[in-house]
């Protein structure tokens, strides 16, 4: 059953409405210096699982490629890497990547990841979730994983909707948006993922968007290289379940809609509140090395107790 969508209406009311005054200069600034190291994608994929189950044009694929490039640039041993995912479209990613992969119940990625990392401190633990998985059902784990500052990287693919279950509104669905469970427009205010992560204690927090895959790669790479809890929010397109009801059912148009809202951190700091209205700042938004990393801290203290 499809409900009538009032696209023009949502375009007017949505606080994330397109910003048209996005200069070419601004656009180019979101692109980070590019490492042209050749990436042998099949080497990181479970090729017998291709093609993916994601809809054609889904941003999750772009995030997966960015993640592969980031791991490749760091030249990590695949045997030492774990990918932990939850339930939702993002959860599929663990099946496709040739690492130690763990597909947990809905929202439980971070507790499972905590167990893995504590048991094997030299492992690289990467968590891939979505906005519903990480921020709604997994919201409590999100806060406390940030607070503990365990060396791991949480990638939140934020597509503004519960995609796999057919398009119900999520904690990041813009107010006024249409979803299967908000046929008259969503009432709920949204989470500011980045500021929640910073307030909770994450030590590397970045935001990016699939409209700039190179930037996504850079943000993820920075998170992987960071020793401590890193959170990377990747704004992504679900043109099927969010776009068709709200902006556009075409991936390129929804990605353009996301792109037009983003503004680089480097530029945003010269913009005033009025200019930043309706814009989403991307870049490394928080990076500190001052808080102790939990796992190293635990093992150090335990060794001291034994001696």
């Amino acid at each position: 059953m499809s409900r009538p969508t009032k696209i023009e209406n949502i375009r007017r009311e949505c606080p994330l409405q397109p910003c048209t005054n996005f200069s070419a200069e601004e656009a180019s600034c979101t692109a980070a210096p590019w490492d042209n190291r050749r990436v042998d994608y099949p080497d990181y994929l479970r090729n017998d699982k291709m093609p993916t189950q994601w809809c054609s044009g889904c941003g999750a694929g772009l995030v997966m490629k960015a993640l592969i490039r980031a791991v490749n640039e760091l030249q990590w041993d695949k045997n030492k890497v774990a990918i932990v995912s939850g339930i939702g479209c993002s959860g599929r990613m663990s099946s496709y990547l040739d690492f130690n992969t763990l597909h947990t119940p809905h929202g439980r990625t971070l507790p499972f990841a905590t167990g893995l990392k504590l048991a094997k401190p030299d492992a690289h633990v990467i968590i891939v979730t979505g906005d519903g998985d990480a921020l709604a059902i997994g919201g409590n784990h999100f806060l406390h994983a940030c607070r503990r500052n365990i060396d791991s990287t949480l990638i939140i693919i934020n597509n503004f909707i519960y995609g796999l279950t057919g398009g119900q509104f999520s904690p990041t669905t813009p107010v006024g948006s249409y979803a299967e469970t908000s046929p008259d427009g969503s009432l709920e205010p949204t989470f500011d993922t980045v500021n929640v992560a910073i307030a909770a204690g994450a030590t590397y927090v970045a935001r990016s968007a699939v409209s700039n895959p190179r930037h996504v790669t850079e943000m993820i790479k920075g998170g992987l290289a960071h020793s401590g809890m890193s959170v990377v929010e990747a704004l992504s397109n679900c043109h099927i379940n969010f776009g068709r009801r709200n902006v556009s059912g075409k991936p390129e148009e929804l990605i353009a809609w996301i792109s037009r809202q983003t503004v680089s951190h480097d530029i945003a700091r010269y913009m005033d509140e009025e200019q930043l209205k309706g814009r989403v700042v991307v870049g490394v938004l928080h990076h500190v090395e001052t808080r102790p990393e939990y796992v190293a801290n635990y093992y150090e203290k335990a060794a001291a107790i034994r001696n």
Partner: protein
Amino acid sequence: MAKAAIDAGCRFYAGYPITPSSEIAADMSHLLPRVGGVFIQMEDEIASMGAVIGASLAGLKAMTATSGPGFSLKLENIGFACMAEVPCVIVNVMRGGPSTGLPTLPSQGDVMQARWGTHGDHSIIALAPSNLTETYWETVRAFNLAEEYRAPVILLLDEILGHMSERVELPDPSELEIFNRVAPQVPPEAYLPYATSGSHVPPMANFFTGYRYHVTGLTHDLTGFPTEDPEITEALMRRLDAKITDNLNGIIKYEETHLEDADIAIVAYGSVARSARVAVEQAREEGMKVGVFRPVTLWPFPGKQVAHLASHVKGLLVPEMNLGQIVGEVERVAGSTPVVPLNQANGQPIPPSGILTALRYMERK
């Protein structure tokens, strides 16, 4: 219990404070860092169960402890451990329920929850010791069974045992028989994580050891990847059940007291079995021929043994600190032998006098 866990090789504990099981966490937080293990207090019960599974996948023997409301929350991830076959031990110190119930008072109200609490068809192992020495031995056995059968093992205590002080005799840990999970004998490229040969339990590769495979809560094939194929699904579901139900001899444990000549048998477990034993001594002094059958393994239920017992006695008395849970299992196998439930769910232990009264009533009938 904490000492038993350490002696059994447990090196990871994740928990959340809850009465009356917090003492186990307190002991583990002291012991684990001193033996090179890891203790973590998580943000909630769900998270502590998740961390236990993660740590076990990475190769550590792992446990958690909780009580009623916390056990309800853990059941989601216990189901994951059943499905993905991740060894772990969960202690549930049963207290009065439902909901917040009677946090400081004993109960046996979670017996059926332990069996069927997580959704979907699954088999489960649950052990119910009745004194502190036995709690030590059953904790060691819980870790061994978890590793041997790649399954979550639940230790069902009640608040009486949880807060009891009594003299215990503990073995030298070096003399314990310890079972460790079977590692794959094939190289990573030939490893099928859920393929079995000769037994129903597949060898288990720990994460980060070169075997890069997929672990999921979805129904999966031998490679570990999701499938909806009806034949593969049926085979998986049957195997998960069979690995427990085809190995009853290796899992079931029980104790029989004065049953040789008994006309009436009491089926009792946990702390109630202590009262039952006292009642039996007194009843014997009164000339009644009664004995006690005490399942130590509650799940899988020793149905065959109880059926055999039922065919030799005139009646079965099943006292429980609940409104009747294991009595259903007894009735299922008792045939035409009368089964008398004796239930109390008011937070108070069932005293020997209560059981004795029931025995006199049955004797008169």
